[in-house]
């Protein structure tokens, strides 16, 4: 018997029933529902930002908010699609137009502040209160998404991690905008880029060991 035949016999002997993953769109919808609920709870607890009505009249802010929300939704869909072996790698293109608009509006915001305040505008100020808001929303969003996508590390680790990171950052940006004002565009840009990198890092660093451990203890695909 060859080593491969032997391996097949062992894998068959080791087989346990698995709970099939729900279709990717349903999983994406489930996570987006969780994210919406989390944001709604945060808004209910902290209330809408004081200048909310005023900000709604600013077309560029509204465009930025819509672009960040759209980036979050589309990147979530892309991440769940890409996490399956037989789906097209072209799903990675889905959130790019919205992400381009979002990043461009953030970049323009930075430039406008530099023109107004000078180069000091590029140096973000991190207040502990602000950090608590950003982490309080960002970490549950990013953490839950990483957990749902952990099985993808065996197939397309980097594209899935990047899409997951983008989704987490974009939705936490859209959520934060409703109830908390970041000090400036540079700070927002740094936070969102940081959040993306954190998700990418966590998924790449721990995803494989989580996935292996689950494989050893019976993968349920929760």
């Amino acid at each position, binding site marked *: 018997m060859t*080593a*491969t*035949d*032997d*391996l*097949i*016999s*062992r*894998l*068959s*002997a*080791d*087989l*346990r*029933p*698995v*709970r*099939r*993953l729900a*279709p990717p769109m349903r999983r994406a919808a489930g996570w987006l529902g969780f994210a919406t609920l989390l944001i709604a709870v945060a808004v209910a607890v902290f209330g809408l930002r004081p200048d909310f009505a005023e900000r709604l009249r600013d077309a560029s802010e509204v465009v930025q908010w819509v672009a960040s929300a759209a980036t979050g939704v589309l990147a979530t869909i892309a991440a769940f699609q890409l*996490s*399956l*072996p*037989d789906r097209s790698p072209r799903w990675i293109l889905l959130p790019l137009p919205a992400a381009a608009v979002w990043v461009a509006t953030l970049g323009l915001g930075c430039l406008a502040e530099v023109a107004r305040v000078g180069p000091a505008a590029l140096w973000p100020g991190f207040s502990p209160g602000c950090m608590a808001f950003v982490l309080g929303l960002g970490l549950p969003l990013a953490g839950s998404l990483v957990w749902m996508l952990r*099985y993808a590390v*065996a*197939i*397309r680790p980097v594209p899935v991690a990047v899409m997951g990171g983008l989704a987490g950052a974009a939705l936490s940006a859209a959520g934060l905008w409703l109830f908390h004002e970041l000090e400036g565009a540079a700070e927002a840009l740094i936070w969102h880029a940081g959040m993306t990198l954190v998700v990418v890092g966590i998924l790449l660093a721990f995803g494989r060991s989580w*996935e*292996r451990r689950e*494989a*050893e203890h019976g*993968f*349920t*695909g929760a």
Partner: protein
Amino acid sequence: MSACATIGPVFAKGPRAPRLGRQRSGTVVVADGDGRWEALMVAAQAGDARAYDLLLRDCLPLLRGIARRRIADAHEAEDAVQDTLLTVHRMLATYDPSRPLRPWLIAITERRCVDRLRRRGRGAGRETPIDDHAETLAAPATETGEDRIAGRQLREAVAELPESQRTALRLAKLEDLPLADAAAKSGLSVGALKVATHRALKTLRRRFGAEDKP
């Protein structure tokens, strides 16, 4: 009960109609015509070990074909096939029975082949091909009789190790596989594999005087 009898009811769900797919290499792949693989996979997901065994053996030629087209070295290609089987095992839950199984298998196999080639590429940077040194190795000035005896003694010492320790040493240290993969290939748990590897190394060290005898 035969595997097919076990999987009978799942045919009613009816996987998608067979279709033609085109691999990246340009070869047209005819999807499994009667949905048999898909049905076997559904049964495997439900825990039917016989259906699973049948499916893995049935699709082995497809996996080997892809691996051998991608990887010139036959041993390395077979290792990629084994990596693929392990990934299939871990990712069973991700297969959607409403879709054909073949593209799912092909995608996993190609991914594992790329990983193998990358790992090999990284390793090649650190290794020196032994063929280049054939003359040096043959030269009596560089390989002394003592070296040859030491090599033979080491081989004999390894051969004398218990089967489980020898396998653990080969997979975990010589082939440098990740623990979980080495454990799956050896049929040992990760803990047992670690213990076997540790004991094998300890025995060898003791035998060659690198460690005090108990």
